[in-house]
C-alpha cells in the first residue's frame, strides 16, 4: 500500500495544501526531528503534509518505511481555537466553532445532509456572535502565531516520541517514577482553603473575571446559606479525592495511558529545548499546555455522535483529564527550574490558563453547544435531506458543506434571530 492509497482511503480531503505552508512544515519537521532523542533522530523518516477534514497528524509504517503525516487543517484549526482562547470575551463566542467541527466530522462520515445542517447552524451562529471576540493588535497576532507554531511542533514531537516507546523497551520502573512524579501531586490538606479556592473558581466561571467568592456574600441569609454550602462541598471533595486516588492507580497501570503520558513528556521536553531561547518562558509553557487542550477539544467534538447511532461512550474522558494534569506538572516543574526566583509562578499561570480555557473555549464548545445538539431535537433524515436540497437550490456551491463553512452565507438568517 502506498502513502497516497492510505490517505485516499482514510482521509476526507479538504483542499490542496498551501505550498508555502508545506515548506514551513518541512522546516519545522526537520527541527523537531533533529531535536528528538537519539533513537528517533537516527531513524530515517519520511514526511508528508496533507489537508484533510479529519484534522489528524499521524505516524505510520508502510512497506517503504516510517511516514510522519502532518495535517495542515489541524494547524488551521489549532489557530482558530487559539484565537478564541486569547481574544474571546464571552463564552458564547465559542459556540459556532462546535457546529463547524460537527459539520466537518459529519463530512468525514459521509453524511452530507448532516454536514450541511451543521454548516448552516455554524454560519447562523457565527453571524449572531461575530462581534464578541476583540480585534487583535500586532503583538497579539505575533503571540498567537508563536503559540500555534509551538503547538504544531508539539504535535510532530508527540508522534515522533511514540517511536521511542517500543524500540527502547523502557524500564517500567522509570516510567512508574515519571507517572508518580506527575500524577501524585502533593495537595493541601487544608480543606477550608480548598473549599475557598473551589468557590472562587465557581465565582470566576459565573462572572467571567476573578471576583473572590466572599465578595458575593453580603446578607445574613447569604452567610447562613454559605455555611451549609461549604459543608456540602467539603464532604463531596473528600469523597472525590478518595475516588480520584483509585482512578489514578488504575490509569497508571493502563499501558496506553502510560505510553501517552510518557510521549507527552518527551514532546514537551523537545519543544522546551527547541524554543526556550526564542520565546518568553511563560508563553512557551502555555503554548504547550494549549496544544493538548486544543487537540482534545477537537477530538471530543469530532467523536461526538449527534444522532446516537454509534453506541460509543467517551470512557477516555478521565484519562484525557489526567494526561492534561500530568502535562501541566511537566510545565510547572520546568518553570520552577528556569524561574527559581518565582516558585509559585508555574502553578499560578497554568491554573489561570486552564480556567480561561475552560471558561471561554472548552466548556462552551464541549458542554454548552453540544447540549443543544440532543438526539431528540435533531431533525430527522428526511428533514435533513429537504433542508440540504433547499440550500443547494438557492446556493449551488453549498453542495460542498465546506463552502458554507468558508463563506458563511446565512447572515440574514442570523439577523432574523434564527438559531439552532
Amino acid at each position: 500500500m502506498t502513502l497516497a492509497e492510505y490517505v485516499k482511503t482514510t482521509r476526507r480531503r479538504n483542499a490542496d495544501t498551501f505550498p508555502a505552508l508545506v515548506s514551513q512544515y518541512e522546516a519545522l519537521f526537520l527541527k523537531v526531528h533533529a531535536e528528538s532523542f537519539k533513537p528517533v533522530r537516527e531513524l530515517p523518516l519520511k514526511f508528508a503534509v496533507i489537508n484533510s477534514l479529519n484534522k489528524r497528524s499521524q505516524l505510520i509504517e508502510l512497506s517503504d518505511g516510517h511516514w510522519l503525516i502532518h495535517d495542515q487543517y489541524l494547524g488551521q484549526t489549532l489557530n482558530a481555537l487559539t484565537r478564541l482562547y486569547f481574544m474571546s470575551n464571552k463564552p458564547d463566542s465559542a459556540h459556532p466553532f462546535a457546529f463547524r467541527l460537527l459539520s466537518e466530522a459529519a463530512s468525514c462520515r459521509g453524511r452530507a445532509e448532516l454536514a450541511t445542517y451543521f454548516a448552516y447552524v455554524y454560519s447562523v451562529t457565527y453571524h449572531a456572535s461575530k462581534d464578541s471576540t476583540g480585534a487583535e493588535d500586532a503583538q497579539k497576532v505575533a503571540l498567537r502565531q508563536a503559540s500555534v507554531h509551538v503547538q504544531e511542533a508539539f504535535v510532530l514531537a508527540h508522534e515522533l516520541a511514540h517511536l521511542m516507546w517500543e524500540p527502547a523497551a523502557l524500564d517500567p520502573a522509570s516510567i512508574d517514577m515519571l507517572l508518580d512524579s506527575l500524577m501524585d501531586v502533593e495537595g493541601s490538606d487544608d480543606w477550608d482553603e480548598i473549599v475557598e479556592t473551589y468557590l472562587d473558581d465557581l465565582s470566576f466561571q459565573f462572572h467571567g473575571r476573578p471576583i473572590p467568592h466572599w465578595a458575593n456574600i453580603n446578607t445574613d441569609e447569604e452567610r447562613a446559606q454559605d455555611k451549609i454550602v461549604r459543608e456540602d462541598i467539603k464532604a463531596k471533595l473528600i469523597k472525590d479525592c478518595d475516588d480520584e486516588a483509585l482512578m489514578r492507580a488504575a490509569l497508571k497501570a493502563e499501558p496506553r495511558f502510560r505510553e501517552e503520558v510518557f510521549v507527552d513528556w518527551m514532546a514537551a521536553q523537545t519543544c522546551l529545548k527547541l524554543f526556550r531561547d526564542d520565546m518568553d518562558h511563560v508563553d512557551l509553557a502555555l503554548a504547550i499546555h494549549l496544544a493538548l487542550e486544543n487537540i482534545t477539544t477537537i477530538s471530543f467534538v469530532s467523536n461526538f455522535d449527534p444522532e446516537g447511532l454509534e453506541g460509543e461512550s467517551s470512557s477516555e474522558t478521565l484519562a484525557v483529564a489526567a494526561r492534561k494534569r500530568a502535562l501541566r506538572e511537566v510545565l510547572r516543574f520546568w518553570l520552577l527550574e528556569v524561574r527559581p526566583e518565582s516558585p509559585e509562578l508555574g502553578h499560578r499561570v497554568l491554573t489561570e490558563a486552564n480556567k480561561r480555557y475552560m471558561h471561554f473555549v472548552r466548556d462552551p464548545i464541549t458542554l454548552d453547544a453540544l447540549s443543544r445538539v440532543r438526539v431528540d431535537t435533531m431533525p430527522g433524515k428526511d428533514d435533513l435531506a429537504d433542508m440540504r436540497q433547499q440550500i443547494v437550490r438557492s446556493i449551488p456551491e453549498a453542495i460542498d458543506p465546506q463552502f458554507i463553512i468558508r463563506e458563511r452565507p446565512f447572515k440574514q438568517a442570523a439577523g432574523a434571530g434564527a438559531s439552532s
Partner: protein
Amino acid sequence: MLAIEMSEGDRSIGEDLQKLSPESVTILDGRAIDGTFGTWTLFLSAAALAVPAIQKIVVALIEAKKHRRVSVDGCEYRGYSVDEVKSLMKQAEKMKDKS
C-alpha cells in the same frame, strides 16, 4: 480500498487474510494523538475484496463486532450493520484502488 479499524482482538485474523493475498492486504498499527486509537487497522485492496474467501472472513469479523470503524474513499463509517458494511465492500471493490 477498504480499511477496517479494530478496537481489540487477535491480529491472527488479519495475518490469515494477508496469507491469502499478501499483495492486497496490509495491516497497520495506528494511534491518534488524543490517545484514542485502534490497535490495528486492516487495509484490503479491491483485488482482495473480490476474493470470496476474504469476503467471508471480513463479514465474520464485522459480525463479531470487533471493529471500531470502516473507511472507504476518505469516509469513515461507525455503527454500521453487517449489510451496510457489505455494501461498502462492494463500493470499495468497484473503485479499483485508483488514487
